[in-house]
């Protein structure tokens, strides 16, 4: 079974992402985090198959979380977990910022379920 970490301060969004995974045909064991801080506690390098993360969250935001998580991955020398960011931040500078923090794929809101499903397929069948 897949292990997926979903990080979003909105419970509704977490539920929607979980549903999208199911709809795309993936059976996943889902861990939810409502903040960047909580996510960082739950994130253990090498144990998740995918992390879905929002950018805007109170406290530690998504980009800060990804940067810290990547740092931890490097320290432990474990495999790279795919990070999917779903956000309304999509200026060139923001995209660079997210990618430099270690985001693999960035989806700009609003996201259609078809595109999300195809993106999940891509991330979950790819080991970069």
């Amino acid at each position, binding site marked *: 079974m897949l292990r997926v970490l979903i990080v979003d301060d909105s419970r509704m969004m977490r539920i929607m992402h979980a549903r999208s995974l199911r709809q795309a045909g993936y059976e996943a064991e889902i861990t939810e985090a409502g903040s960047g801080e909580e996510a960082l506690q739950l994130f253990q390098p090498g144990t998740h198959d995918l992390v879905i993360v929002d950018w805007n969250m109170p406290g530690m935001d998504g980009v800060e979380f990804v940067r810290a998580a990547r740092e931890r991955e490097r320290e432990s020398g474990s495999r790279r977990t795919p990070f999917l960011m779903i956000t309304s931040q999509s200026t060139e500078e923001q995209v660079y910022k997210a990618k430099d923090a270690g985001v693999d794929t960035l989806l700009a809101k609003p996201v259609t379920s078809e595109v999300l499903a*195809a993106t999940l397929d891509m991330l979950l069948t790819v080991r970069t």
Partner: protein
Amino acid sequence: MSARGKGTSPVPEELLRAVSERVFPRLGFSPTELLWQRLARVVQQQARQAGFDALDDYLRHLLHAGEQELDQLAEALTINETYFFREPKHFEALRQLLPELARKGERVRILSAGCATGEEAYSLAIVAHRVLSPLAKEFEVVGVDIDRRALERAQAGRYRAWSFREQGLALAQGYVRKERDSWLVRADIRQRVRFEQMNLVEQVPTGPFHVVFCRNTLMYLTPEHRKAVIARLVKLLPPGGVLFIGSAETLDAPPPELERVTVAGAHLFRRREADPTATPRERRDGSPLRVLVVSRSPAVRVAIRHILKAAAGLELVGEARSASEVAERLRETPADVVLLDAVSDPLQAASSRENWGRSAAVLTLAGPASGLSRGTGILVLPDDRVETLRGLGEELVRRIRTVAARGPRPASAGTGPLVWPRGPSWARLLLIGSSTGGPAVVTEILRRLPIGLGLAVLVVQHMPANFTRSFAERLDRLSAYSVREAANGDLLQADTVYIAPGQQNTTVAPGGRLKVEPPGASDIYVPNVDRAFLSVARAGMAERTLAVILTGMGDDGAEGMARLTAAGAYTLAQDPREAVVAGMIDAALARGAVQKVLPADDIPSEVVRWAGSGRRALVVRS
């Protein structure tokens, strides 16, 4: 919290709450009592319109409804309460401020943020016309709102008496003409007002705007969204630019760039002249950005000299041979951006910026083997030849502007620039050929494409010369991809969209270098889709290319699609039944050059699927 409207059937609260959780985040609205009642009312209306007998059924339907339906509901929720010259004090203040704002040159730009049906935007245009036309100054008003239907009414510029309640009619006198029972805004005023559909929570139009009116919109937002929207609006203001909010509203904590001022009894905010961070950011006064070049290679310095000379708005203020000279140079001649060549001297990148990193923004040019990752402050060149640098002129200029806008920042302490090794800059190419009716389709496709597919995109859209630039700019705002007009010599990069400029032909040379040339005498359609597609086949890149042919008149692209198919590309066509004009699609289909036909809505997910295909499967679907 009650969700009962007067005289209507009771609304099931649990369901309504669940629906609100899907809808409110789209607007950034906080669930106030007012909004609850509005939602309760709106769903009842919509349920009737959608043909549901029971409200419960409709609400349950909404819980699983698609994006589009939720967006429609969100639009219906927005409040379009507005009329001409609402809060006349604000317009009087603007009248007094405009001459000073106009003195700063060019034309005055005014934004009506949350313009609903347009009364405010036209009121602003009327005041601007009254003040500025005697001064022979130009102006432009941009109105944005999320509600598409309201914008359609705004566009029409036709209003009933109710839109002029209070003093509206008196103040608009001479600018509206009565036609039977409605009033039409004068054509020359309508021409100066542009409306755009936009969700302020997600984006703002391209600035600068000397005047921003955002009244009675912020109050509906959650505190976080309010803060984000205000921050974005502030960025649109040049120093001295002014922001008006509703007189019943407050900025919880005004950003430091703003000062509160009172003009003609109206309270408003003005962007301070001097940036409180006291760093040379964007030079908004219109003077050129000052660039200091650091390179050990004379050839590189010459190449950069030429590039900067050809670029408007950039000025070369100095050259240094090594990073160690920079601090001293900057003391003599301040610069906004230091361009650091780490290609000819990899040690440059490592040299300490402690002494001067705070006095100027830095753009580092890095070689392919540098191990440096791509980032705003780093431009990784595909190879170390000076020719390559010359070809990257436009990219270089753009990046200089980007880092200048970001301003100086301390060197990333200790962690070093090495993030993780990246693969080739682009892995696959998406080609889009399009004509009549195409821009809207191209926009929708690119809006939905995720970043990070390793995809470079070339769009060949039949368009006159002057339109491709604004098309590129608009796409750049709307999509997460960097979108720009292709320039001769550009190297394809991942996550970037190149728009073939009008009146010229854009082709791809081996290695992914773009050629932009005048069209041949026989080219009926320019920019030519066939030529672009054929060049990709010839460059041996077909196997990693997906070509899409969209709506359009004529048969351009059919030949190119056929050659690409033969060479191993994946080819798609928009469903001709939904195309505005099916000519180009039919021509490609007739050649047997299309492997799959899809409605435009399904093209983005197909692109993602293709971009992810051919890689090793990690998991098997359950």
